[in-house]
């Protein structure tokens, strides 16, 4: 997918600038020699007296154990499972350690991205594919890029956190051996203590000082999964209780001494500047302290968020026009005219002779559409910023710590290392917190209010207006069927480029075709003799970015709906045909499992219908069956069955919750949501216009996790892409109506 070398060089400049030598787990020498240097353990810098850190994830002081969560928690539960992977190996119990989010450091580079960066299909385990992944890993190591995304947390951390815990455990045992004179082999660990042969117990914290004086046991191995106490078992997420009790502080809940509140109004023509404004009315409003002009808008500083929001609303602004078409109809026109050689992204995959294949048998052609959609996690964009002569401190929930530093620094003329970033628990993201609208304006505001901590909260309306949406796309697919088989499939889509857009705004533009426009189009695992997958990149449209499951969220709908059309044209059963065509054994097993779970028996009749879809995204194959009934009040979704193969289910309860949530996300937005532009601004500015799914539309969702994949895979996004096509295919089965455009509620009513 793309030229990997070019991608890694260009895309990850932040990391490259920050790291000199590169980081290898366990290669930074004994703990006593660890220094807060570019190639060292970042925890060494903040270590108190008589304390020890064995690696960038474990810190023990005389009074507490702290485990570091390097990936941001955006609701997907990694603020829990990361420390538990360490705790499993350290023989720590929940409650015996604190969890802290990592600061920016190349030590936390994301190894998980190697799967997505290597230009091979996920199911391809050939030596060539593995060599490309190994090369991708090396460039990631050099880049030092620390980022949460691409469903990569578990793939990135599954090995390294268990090893980090094992190193800590074995080093603590070695320290206890030295103190007691007992052989290490006779020492064990349990529940935060080293246990000596005579049964006496030494708490880990009391060994910190001694452990700091011996070399860490770097060759420690993680345990066999059959011995796990917590992992793989129905454990309780560490954050559940605090969230239920209302005790967990999200970024938006923080308060500081002397803090003032800010709200902003920014040019709704995304990215364009302010021309002029009139704040005379706002100035006289209650609670208002100051009106500030910033690059692309205005800000009000007040004594309460609500005062700030009300006052900023009263400012009349004149905006520079948007750089993209002002009206939505013209966005579609640009897409329609993008299926041309000059807009070619890439022909990602070609099998056989597609031209000849399309001339065989019956030709099927269809056009599909997917609109812009907003992210809109329930916690609006926010942050606290404090600028003084030394630099800036920023408290914000974000998925790219180094990019936060760079964006904030660039906005106010600092160096990235002058920006101190404190990551926060967040109320969702879905890709929203990979962007920087709040970070940049917060830096500008705090810089104009030096010495005063400023809490910025976007109003929901402003958050919608500034939400950089999911890509908009059109697919023009052709295929042919003969003798009850699919002969040829020519998949073509024109789309805005989400991943390229993100990289460009990070200051590291990518010249290669956007690899996310291959996702869901090229990775089709059906035996089709003639196959081609091509992307075109539309130019001059709205900026777009990664939205939960990214390219596959649109392309998965296009591909799996069209495959369904071909299957029907060939007179086949949608489930049996997919199973018969599937050319990866454990993916076929996944489909067979789904058929068994849902007791698939073909058409249901009586206004009821079932649809199936299968999409691999971010390496994780997911297949879903949706069952609907056509009632006199509209389509009712009765039930959804989901089979997912992640290689290893690490956190089973959260696994089910994530899969169900992904299905709800995929269905709800496909049914009910679009962002359209008028006068250059998004027309949908609150949830009543962009509702997604509410509880009354939510079906029963039955989930099964499989462990046949040879690799441990991520899960945050992959349940999303099959949901929309499975629903559309079910509606077809129930009503005979083929819906080829999202949102579906433009074409059919839902109960």
């Amino acid at each position, binding site marked *: 997918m793309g030229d990997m070398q070019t991608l890694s060089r260009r895309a990850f400049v932040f990391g490259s600038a920050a790291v000199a030598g590169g980081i290898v787990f366990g290669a930074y020498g004994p703990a006593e020699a660890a220094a807060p240097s570019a190639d060292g353990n970042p925890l060494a810098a903040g270590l108190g007296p008589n304390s020890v850190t064995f690696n960038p994830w474990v810190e023990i002081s005389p009074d507490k154990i702290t485990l570091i969560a390097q990936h941001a928690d955006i609701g997907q539960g990694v603020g829990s499972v990361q420390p538990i992977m360490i705790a499993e190996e350290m023989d720590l119990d929940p409650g015996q350690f604190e969890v802290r989010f990592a600061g920016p450091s190349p030590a936390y580079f994301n190894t998980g991205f190697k799967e997505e960066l290597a230009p091979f299909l996920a199911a391809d385990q050939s030596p060539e594919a593995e060599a490309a992944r190994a090369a991708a890993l090396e460039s990631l190591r050099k880049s030092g890029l620390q980022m949460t995304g691409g469903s990569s947390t578990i793939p990135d951390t599954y090995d390294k956190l268990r090893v980090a815990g094992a190193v800590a455990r074995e080093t603590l045992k070695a320290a206890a051996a030295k103190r007691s004179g007992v052989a290490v082999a006779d020492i064990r660990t349990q529940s935060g203590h080293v246990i000596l042969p005579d049964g006496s117990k030494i708490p880990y914290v009391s060994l910190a000082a001694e452990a700091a004086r011996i070399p860490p046991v770097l060759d420690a191995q993680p345990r066999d999964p059959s011995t796990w106490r917590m992992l793989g078992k129905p454990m309780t997420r560490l954050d559940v209780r605090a969230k239920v009790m209302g005790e967990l502080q999200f970024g938006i809940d923080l308060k500081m001494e002397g803090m003032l509140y800010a709200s902003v109004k920014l040019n709704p023509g995304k990215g364009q500047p302010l021309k002029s404004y009139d704040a005379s009315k706002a100035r006289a409003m209650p609670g208002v302290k100051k009106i500030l002009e910033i690059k692309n808008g205005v800000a009000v500083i007040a004594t309460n968020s609500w005062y700030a929001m009300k006052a900023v609303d009263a400012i009349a602004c004149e905006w520079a026009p948007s750089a993209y078409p002002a009206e939505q109809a013209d966005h579609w026109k640009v897409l329609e005219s993008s299926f041309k050689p000059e807009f070619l992204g890439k022909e990602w995959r070609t099998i056989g002779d597609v031209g000849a294949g399309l001339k065989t048998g019956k030709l099927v052609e269809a056009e599909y559409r997917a609109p812009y959609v907003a992210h809109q996690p329930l916690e609006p964009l926010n942050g606290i910023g404090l600028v003084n002569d030394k630099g800036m401190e920023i408290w914000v929930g974000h998925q790219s710590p180094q990019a936060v530093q760079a964006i904030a620094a660039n906005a106010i003329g600092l160096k990235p290392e002058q920006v101190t970033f404190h990551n926060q628990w967040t109320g969702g993201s879905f890709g929203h917190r990979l962007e920087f609208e709040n970070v940049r304006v917060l830096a500008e505001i705090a810089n104009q209010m030096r010495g005063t901590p400023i809490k910025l909260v976007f109003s929901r309306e402003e958050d919608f207006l500034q939400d950089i949406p999911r890509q908009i796309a059109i697919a023009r697919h052709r295929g042919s069927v003969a003798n009850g088989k699919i002969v040829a499939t020519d998949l073509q889509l024109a789309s805005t480029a989400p991943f390229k857009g993100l990289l460009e705004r990070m200051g590291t533009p990518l010249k290669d075709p956007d690899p996310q426009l291959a996702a869901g189009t090229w990775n089709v695992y059906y035996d089709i003799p003639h196959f081609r997958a091509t992307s075109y990149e539309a130019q001059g449209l709205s900026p777009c970015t990664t939205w939960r499951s990214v390219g596959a969220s649109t392309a998965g709908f296009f591909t799996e709906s069209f495959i369904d059309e071909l299957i029907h044209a060939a007179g086949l059963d949608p489930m049996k045909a997919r199973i018969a065509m599937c050319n990866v054994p454990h993916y076929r097993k996944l489909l067979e499992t789904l058929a068994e779970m849902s007791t698939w028996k073909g058409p249901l009749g009586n206004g009821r219908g079932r649809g199936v879809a299968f999409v691999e995204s971010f390496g994780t194959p997911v297949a879903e069956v949706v069952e609907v009934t056509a009632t006199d009040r509209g389509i009712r979704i009765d039930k959804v069955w989901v089979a997912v193969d992640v290689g290893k289910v690490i956190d089973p309860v959260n696994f089910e919750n994530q899969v169900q949530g992904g299905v709800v996300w995929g269905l709800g937005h496909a049914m009910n949501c679009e962002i359209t532009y008028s006068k250059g601004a998004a027309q949908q500015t609150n949830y009543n216009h962009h509702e997604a799914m509410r*509880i009354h539309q939510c079906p029963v969702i039955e989930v099964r996790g499989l462990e046949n994949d040879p690799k441990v895979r991520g899960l945050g996004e992959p349940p999303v892409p099959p949901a929309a096509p499975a629903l559309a295919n079910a509606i077809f089965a129930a009503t005979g109506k083929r819906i080829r455009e999202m949102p579906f509620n433009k074409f059919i009513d839902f109960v």
Partner: protein
Amino acid sequence: MIELKVNGIKRQVDVVPEMPLLWVLRDELGITSAKYGCGVAQCGACTVHIDGKAVRSCQAHIGEVAGKSVVTLEGLHNKDQNPVLQAWIAHQVPQCGYCQTGQIMQAISLLASIPKPTDEQINQVMSGNLCRCGTYPRIRAAIHAAAANKMAEK
């Protein structure tokens, strides 16, 4: 000065009477379980109880709340024994958790008026509470479990 009772304690705030209760709780009193999600009664994240009824605190002007009794999730009695909170923990409902305090306050109100709600009744009462993470199957299960536990207590 406007006087109100929050979680059993008398508080005074010096704000305009139009200010929504939500922002009094969050920015003036530092009570943060009530969340800002939409500001227009579309998400339910700000749900609190006023004189025992579930209310969207973003829509309640503080001038009108004066003299009334406000209870936020922080102020629930005997939280560790509360069947709704217990069920929410047992079923591990939250993902990001941002909407859950509002969901819980709404669910408590639901169970106070309908001790054993059907799925249809749950849908009706809970559909004003948006969850972007999609925890609805677990919300439903937790409400049924809490209802069963409450019945068992009686």
